[in-house]
């Protein structure tokens, strides 16, 4: 979907020009590449989904809500029923209008008990989806959820026709499929029925998989692609000095924390967790791991949430205090194994830096480096000390994904009764001020006792040729303006 937000400032000036082919190099992907709107896994999957399909609403470049297939999404006073109104005149790629039946079918597909899609796990509160008018659909929940719109604003919840099949991957996105070769590339054409008139500007969009950093950067340097995502941060300065290129650096809420299991020794002792948090030199982390391309973290996530607890004091490295806490816990000379894998650029590097930093406090960190598949394999949720990676999310959806006992990815096995009570109440609280207060208290608990070391937020750094216009910084954490290419044009 196309963002509203600020307008682009790039080399080509004047009004946007139509036409041309935009070739984008995207990190990752492989033979399991898919066009399924509801199971995007890798970056290329996400990039495809973002351009072919649209959910009811989504986050724009500033991480504010933006209505897409829906014109509005409003809660009932008790936040148990949410009503979405479909945008007037919106059509699928084949020209058929979007009907409430399509929306209902979409959610049935996602929630299919035999084959639940990625979005299903965070929609457990959803009882049923009912068409209530020509253009309205009701989402009936089994409990009040005050921020349900946030749950709907996911790229993996794109609206598709009721008769959707992967052989005819149709959505309402700015582009439609022309060709698709798993593991290699996809070619999309302009969707002439797109609801935002005049857009997209380019005729063709080619998304090309790149497994290798080298190959991707080299392809950009040798002008075989127009834009690439995820520039290795260490190369930012070099690429910036190249006149043919532009760097797109976005501040995001993406984080790459260390996870400590709070229910197993040695991290079941809160003093050990606190000591570990005091060991990290966060500035050094950002400098060494991210080459400075990041912002300081304070062991709290969701920095763009209005309820973010920015009043809590910034935690800094304090080795004497860390040693004291460890001694108190009887864990001086602690030895731990840190499980790491290249789950994201910088992950293995961060582990190495942490290993080095821990020495100062007399903590010996052994690195166990796995490949990504093994990392996310059978033992994924049972590592005592590991890492994880999340894109920008607001607080409550993030808690639902990772900080509740029944959350699908509760890596730290976080199960704090006081915290659960606060969060549960907040979820049901429609009043924003009241909710914010509850969330701040919950964050304070995580700040004091949590199992994650959140040392910073990563900037998203991408690069493109100077003749490409319309790419803007994006807070969601997805690269290249959130992979949204409908505002992009070629000078």
């Amino acid at each position: 979907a196309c963002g509203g937000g600020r307008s682009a400032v790039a080399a080509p000036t004047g009004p946007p020009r139509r036409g041309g082919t935009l070739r984008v190099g995207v990190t990752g992907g492989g033979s399991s590449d898919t066009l399924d709107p509801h199971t995007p896994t890798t970056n290329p999957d996400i990039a495809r989904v973002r351009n072919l399909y649209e959910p009811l609403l989504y986050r724009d470049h500033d991480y504010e809500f933006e209505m897409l297939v829906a014109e509005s999404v409003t809660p009932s006073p008790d936040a148990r029923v949410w009503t979405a109104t479909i945008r007037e005149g919106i059509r699928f790629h084949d020209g058929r209008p979007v009907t409430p039946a399509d929306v209902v079918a979409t959610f049935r597909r996602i929630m299919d008990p035999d084959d639940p899609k990625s979005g299903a796990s965070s929609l457990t509160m959803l009882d049923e989806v009912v068409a209530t008018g020509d253009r309205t659909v009701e989402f009936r929940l089994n409990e009040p959820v005050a921020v349900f719109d946030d749950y709907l604003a996911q790229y993996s919840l794109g609206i598709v026709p009721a008769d959707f099949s992967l052989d005819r991957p149709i959505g309402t996105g700015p582009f439609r499929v022309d060709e698709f070769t798993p593991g290699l590339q996809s070619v999309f054409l302009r969707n002439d029925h797109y609801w935002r008139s005049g857009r997209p500007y380019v005729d063709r969009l080619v998304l090309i998989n790149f497994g290798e950093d080298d190959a991707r950067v080299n392809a950009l340097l040798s002008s075989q692609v127009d834009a690439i995502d995820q520039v290795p941060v260490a190369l930012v300065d070099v690429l910036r000095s190249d006149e043919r290129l532009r760097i797109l650096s976005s501040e995001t809420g993406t984080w790459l924390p260390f996870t400590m299991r709070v229910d197993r020794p040695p991290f079941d002792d809160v003093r050990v967790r606190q000591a570990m948090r005091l060991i990290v030199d966060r500035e050094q982390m950002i400098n060494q791991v991210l080459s400075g391309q990041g912002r300081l973290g304070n062991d709290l996530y969701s920095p763009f949430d209005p309820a973010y607890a920015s009043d809590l004091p910034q935690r800094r490295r304090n080795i004497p205090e860390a040693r004291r806490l460890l001694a108190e816990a009887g864990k001086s000379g602690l030895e731990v194994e840190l499980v790491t894998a290249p789950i994201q650029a910088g992950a293995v590097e961060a582990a190495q830096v942490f290993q080095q930093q821990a020495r100062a406090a007399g903590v010996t960190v052994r690195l166990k480096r796995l490949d990504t598949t093994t990392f996310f394999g059978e033992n994924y949720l049972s590592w005592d000390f590991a890492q994880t990676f999340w894109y920008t999310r607001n607080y409550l959806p993030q808690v639902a994904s990772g900080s509740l006992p029944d959350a699908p990815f509760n890596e730290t096995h976080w199960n704090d009764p006081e915290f659960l009570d606060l969060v549960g109440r907040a979820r049901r609280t429609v009043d924003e001020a009241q909710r914010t207060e509850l969330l701040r208290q919950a964050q304070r608990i995580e700040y004091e006792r949590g199992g994650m070391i959140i040392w910073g937020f990563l900037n998203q750094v991408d690069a493109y040729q100077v003749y490409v216009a319309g790419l803007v910084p994006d807070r969601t954490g997805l690269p290249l303006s959130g992979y949204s290419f409908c505002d992009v044009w070629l000078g």
Partner: protein
Amino acid sequence: MSLFRRALALPQAKVGLMLTAAVVLLAVFGPWLGPLLTGHDPMEFAAKPFRPDGAAGTDGLGRDVLSRFLSGGATLLLYAVLATALGVVLGTALGMLAGYSGGRLDSVIMRGNDVLLSFPQLVFALLAIAMLGPQGWLLVLVIGITHAPRVARVARQATVAVRDNDYIRAAQMYAMPRRTILLREVLPNITGPLMVELGLRLTYSIGYVASLSFLGLGIQPPAADWGLMINENRIALVVQPWGVLLPVLAIAVLTVGTNLITDSLASAASRREKEVLS
């Protein structure tokens, strides 16, 4: 052994020995030398990543490249030597047994050999490492096993050439046990090709360990290791070439050195054979 003396008489062997010795010395004493020269521990953060600070700049995590380079050869060498030793010992044993026994045992061993040979090396490494994780002993094992069938071929061929010599028959006539015949009569007479193979395998091992590290399957971070350094610093080749160039140079010099020695061993061995024949 006279083979060595003969080989050493060749100028290329001297050059090879010098190159190899230089790199080995560097690898062995580098870990002590590094901090003295640069003032930085190989693990310590000296500056931001890929900055031209220090003699050879910093690496992807801002550690001092020179210091890491100096301490990065030991593991590579150790693994390469161990893997070579394993492969040559295993392969020689199998090859000699096959070549000397002939018949059914020979066929069984050599077919097994063929199977191993046709199994792609890299897939083997990939699978083994995916199975058990990248560990030092596994690297040594994987590379050693990869070498074994190749060495076995050579050892078998050499053994077959020696087997029908009358001195082997004489030993049989004195009812010498098979093991003794293999060790005392056969082995000393196939040292020529085996030494060549040893050198060749060592050269391959070095490249192989480096290649596996390059694919992220070899020696693991944060170890300072030449192969790994190339992998880690490759993206910044244009900005901070030293992180790649120093280890590449060292590996190249080392392999060129071992290759030269191997070469001279080969020509010394073939010359010896010619002399024996004439």
